[in-house]
């Protein structure tokens, strides 16, 4: 096996001693954060509270506070939901799929990406509940539990599939993430100086002893989880896309949606992870662990998925024309040239044209450039969802019921709030837990593995 590692470039730059790795990674946990950190936190909390106000208002007065109107039953809240679920894809993809493909470079970023997955999914899950007319009931009645109506839920409904898909995805990702954390908790436990920390880590580490008789099963389980998470991560956005694909609205009812949603999700997910990591590696001096090579690899994936998305956009148009159904054709012509053309072209340029810059190695490796591009990608991906959800609804079958949608201040506050929630959680995570998997990184440091050629 070791022979493959020989060709692999070193994931971790230099040859840090294992103990120094402990030092670096657990530093944020043991030291008081600086002013910068508190400023950042204050900022995100402000955003969060803006959202909280909007949320409280719409709960008390009703969804009427939003811009939704008669043909456009779904708008920003659903757009946000799909957007955040999409963001939540990079993490599990990195830790599961890349793990299966034995992509060693993932080790530096896996833990953080997974955490972001969990936070993104939490953020996303708020919207489908809050967008309903009676959230206090929706929260319960969407579950198939025996009730006084002796009525069950409708398993034909894609929304119900969502309920299962998203919650399963959340649970499994969380378990996956936690299993990964166990050895690190043990390490922290054994380094802990203060009594409280010791107690906490002793509990959370579940008594881990780094015993090889455990490592043996542990690795197997990790492999299995990766194997399970891989189809799962692909299924989640597929099922989210069913919300649209299985309906019969022109512009929604297209078979291409599932793959194209998944590609889009990975696309935006990577963009978001890359954005965050650029800060993290600076602030906590992880440059030699989260290396530029790693970031470049991520940009390559963005380039790939971005191009896939572009292909999907054009294929949609072709199929619509090929279908020969007027409503279908109109839906797409209307997207590109109708009253929402502006949104369509924002989407197209941000998602398809701009990422093409990543063909150039210089740009791929320049931190500021890749940051800006990734930001554009996220904007573009948000608009993709907007275009799909709103333009299709606002002009459907009967011209008599068409109407133009425009958001209200409440809609905006909810979007802002979602970012607030997400980044607040990210910041707290970076402070409270090892942002990088200690055990995994150690395992890939040069010379960390035995060189016993007599075996082979």
């Amino acid at each position, binding site marked *: 096996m070791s022979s493959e590692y020989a060709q692999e470039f070193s994931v971790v730059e230099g040859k840090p001693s294992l103990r120094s790795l402990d030092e670096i990674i657990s530093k944020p946990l043991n030291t008081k954060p600086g002013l910068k950190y508190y400023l950042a936190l204050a900022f995100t909390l402000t955003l969060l509270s803006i959202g909280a106000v909007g949320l409280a208002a719409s709960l008390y007065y009703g969804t009427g506070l939003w811009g939704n109107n008669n043909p456009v039953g779904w708008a920003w809240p659903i757009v946000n939901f799909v957007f955040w679920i999409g963001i939540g894809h990079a993490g599990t993809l990195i830790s599961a799929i890349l793990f299966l493909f034995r992509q060693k470079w993932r080790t530096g970023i896996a833990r953080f990406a997974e955490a972001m997955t969990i936070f993104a999914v939490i953020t996303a899950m708020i919207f489908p509940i809050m967008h309903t007319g009676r959230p*206090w009931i929706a929260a319960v009645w969407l579950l198939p539990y025996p009730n006084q109506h002796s009525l069950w839920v409708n*398993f034909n409904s894609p929304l119900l*599939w969502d309920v299962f898909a998203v919650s399963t995805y959340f649970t499994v990702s969380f*378990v996956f993430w936690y299993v990964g954390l166990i050895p690190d908790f043990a390490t922290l436990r054994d380094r802990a100086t203060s009594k409280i920390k010791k107690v906490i880590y*002793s509990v959370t580490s579940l*008594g881990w002893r780094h015993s090889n008789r455990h*490592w043996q*099963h542990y690795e*197997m389980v990790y492999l299995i989880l990766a194997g399970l998470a891989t189809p799962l991560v692909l299924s989640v956005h597929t099922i989210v896309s069913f919300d649209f694909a299985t309906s019969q609205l022109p512009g929604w009812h297209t078979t291409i949606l599932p793959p194209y949603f998944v590609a889009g999700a990975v696309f935006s997910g990577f963009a978001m992870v890359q954005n965050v990591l650029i800060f993290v590696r600076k602030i906590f001096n992880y440059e030699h662990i989260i290396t530029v090579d790693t970031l470049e690899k991520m940009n390559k994936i963005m380039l790939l998925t971005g191009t896939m998305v572009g292909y999907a956009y054009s294929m949609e148009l072709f199929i619509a024309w090929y279908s020969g159904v007027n409503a279908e054709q109109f839906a797409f012509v209307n997207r590109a040239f109708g009253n929402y053309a502006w949104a369509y072209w924002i989407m197209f340029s941000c998602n398809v044209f701009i990422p093409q810059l990543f063909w150039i190695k210089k740009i791929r490796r320049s931190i500021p450039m890749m940051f800006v591009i990734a930001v554009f990608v996220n904007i573009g991906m948000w608009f993709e969802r907007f275009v799909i959800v709103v333009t299709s609804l606002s002009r459907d079958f009967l011209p008599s019921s068409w109407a133009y949608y425009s958001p209200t201040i409440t809609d905006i506050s909810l979007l802002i709030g979602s970012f607030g929630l997400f980044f607040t959680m990210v910041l707290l995570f970076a402070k409270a837990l090892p942002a990088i998997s200690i055990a995994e990184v150690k395992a890939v440091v040069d010379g960390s593995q035995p060189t016993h050629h007599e075996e082979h």
Partner: protein
Amino acid sequence: MSDKKLYSYTALFDTPNKIIHAVKSVAEKGYTKYDVNTPYPLHGMDDAMKLKRSKIGWVTLVFGLLGTASAVAMMGWMMTLDYPIVIGGKPFFPLPAFGPIIFELSVLFGALATVGAMLFVIFKFPNNSHPMHDTEYMKNVSSDKYGISIEAVDPKFNLDEIVALFNGLGAETTAPIYFDEEEVNYKPTILDKKFLGFLAFVAFATSVGVYGTMNIALYLPPFDWMVNQDKSSPQQTSEIFANNASMLQPVKGTVARGFIPYKFSNQPEQAGKLLVNPIIPSVENLKVGKEKFDIYCSPCHGYLAEGDSRLNGKFPNPPSLHSEKARNWSDGSLYHIIVDGQNIMPSYSSQLSKNDRWSIVNYIRVLQRSLNAKESDLL
């Protein structure tokens, strides 16, 4: 020192190769109850320790399939057997629609079961009180050293031999690990005051919480259950009208569709003259007449219209309907009395439909004839 119970004897090495070598030789020596602790999994260590491949994958398979089965069973039962509803013209067992959830549940069951099995079956977690914890040895292996420990319970365990062996293998440090006294002598007591107090608190908190939510919180705005309807159902109260009744009397003198008012009120003789009995006596309508008579008339007039009812003596006695006078009354007059009442007898118009009234009249005739039959009846 000697009073402590020995758990195992350990040695620390500082390179992966050394530990692999060490493990091999320990294994050759035939020790069985030994373990290796490394900060991260070492490649080739499993072979060195001669460990068999982990079988935990079977758990995943079994529980994954269980997930599949239970998903199909649940949805099938709910939608097809327990409460089939026509939904969008789809069949009652829409298998394609079940696909996504079948998949999700399989994955969920599989994943949770696997992790659960690993933690609670194989690792016997949570056992946070292992003798190894809080030892120098543990601190080192969880950071950058590679340790091996041979347990005292190993059949071939011999302290001196092992120390020699470890030093021979170039161990950095070697040290014994003892059981923790408290842990060994710890006796759990279920009736601990704190514990009981805690239980009590939980019980209290839950019931208050549940009650508060179910009966108060959930009925404050904005929560709406459509229980209070902004409309007036029969017999509801209403603040608008007198004595809070939402049910009103129709305006005097108005005529509702299908209800031509009785026009002889307060004109008995008119009624007697002009009213004609539209119903020819028949078994059916006499049955109706009897039924209604027994319900509405018999309480005063008695089942046989002899005026001998349970009310006898309570009120001025109701008259027998067999009197000369009563027999000579025309059907119209009887009908009029039912509608308008007489003396202290109230009107029965709201209890009895036109049909019922005439049927009762006919029935009364039958009763009267029964006491004063004509010859013709005897034939």
